């Protein structure tokens, strides 16, 4: 898990030490623009089955397990075989949100609405890697509590 950033750090240090006047390494690496450098090793999909906090209430929850080979098409929806209303008692998986039963006119249908059928349009798995770029996102609770305590944000 820690190998990747470690390698990056090492190369960065080594690089800075060796040649200060060579081109700067960006995310895409040092290979000339027209060439394809070696691909980084594929990251593992996180599979702990632990729910993650959402960064904001409307955020589609991320998938806490691997979904390799799960079929979602006209014929079958593997996700719903655990997350559908009827399957949850057995699977103990969270049921798809009630908003998923709503059609575009706000009518509730008997089952998942076609526009919400393709789960992976919004829900994605996560990988066991360090983020490649920094992120300064601060969630709303932190902003509010900082305001209350008089810090500016």
């Amino acid at each position, binding site marked *: 898990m820690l190998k990747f950033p470690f390698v990056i750090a090492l190369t960065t240090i080594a690089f800075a030490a060796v040649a200060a006047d060579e081109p700067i390494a960006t995310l895409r690496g040092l290979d000339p623009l027209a060439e394809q450098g070696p691909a980084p090793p594929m990251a593992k999909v996180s599979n702990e*089955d632990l729910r993650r906090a959402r960064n904001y209430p409307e955020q589609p929850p991320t998938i806490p397990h691997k979904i*390799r080979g799960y*079929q979602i098409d*006209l*014929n*079958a*929806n593997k996700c*719903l*075989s655990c997350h559908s209303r009827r399957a949850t008692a*057995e699977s103990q998986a969270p049921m798809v949100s009630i908003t998923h039963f709503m059609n575009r006119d706000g009518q509730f249908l008997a089952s998942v609405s076609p526009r919400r059928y393709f789960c992976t349009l919004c829900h994605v798995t996560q990988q066991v890697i360090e983020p490649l770029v920094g992120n300064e996102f601060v969630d709303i609770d932190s902003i509010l509590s900082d305001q209350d305590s008089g810090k500016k944000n």
Partner: protein
Amino acid sequence: MWSAAKQYWRVLTRPSVHFSLGFLTFGGFVAGIMFWGGFNTALEITNTETFCVGCHEMRENVFQELKSTIHYTNRSGVRASCPDCHVPHDWTNKIARKIQASSEVWGKIFGTIDTREKFLAKRRELAEREWARLKANDSLECRNCHGFDYMDFTRQSPRAANAHGTFLASAEKTCIDCHKGIAHELPDMKGVPGW
């Protein structure tokens, strides 16, 4: 008719004039081995993946789909071939399945399933046959490789350990109840329990 039968019976029961008893016994024995061996060898040939994907519709449909799954390529390099999942190991069941499979070969020769579309149209029926078979034998073919007694739940994902520790352990469900579509794309699952 009756008299002809009687005639044959007489020929069969009359002692041999030209061959010794030893020759007949031994010869019959050898011929028997040859026949049995030949039969089983022929059977073994039909029991290889090469034979299975020799047919266009298997190679272009189910085989292509299998290739991206864990049973074709994985980190340990152990894999399942078509007969591992589809042909029973014990002899009686094997013959029974072969006779049934002959109807699928018939479908091939006489062109019932010669395009992807025709295959897809037939897929639900073929899949249901396999589900029923695996349900009836408690997923025997899966268990030939995956022994429940040897599953280390601490090494499985929490989801897998949960499912296996409850419904599988209590024998309420068998592998195929939860793992449909493990090796190929699924047909239209409308009405299949749990889908």
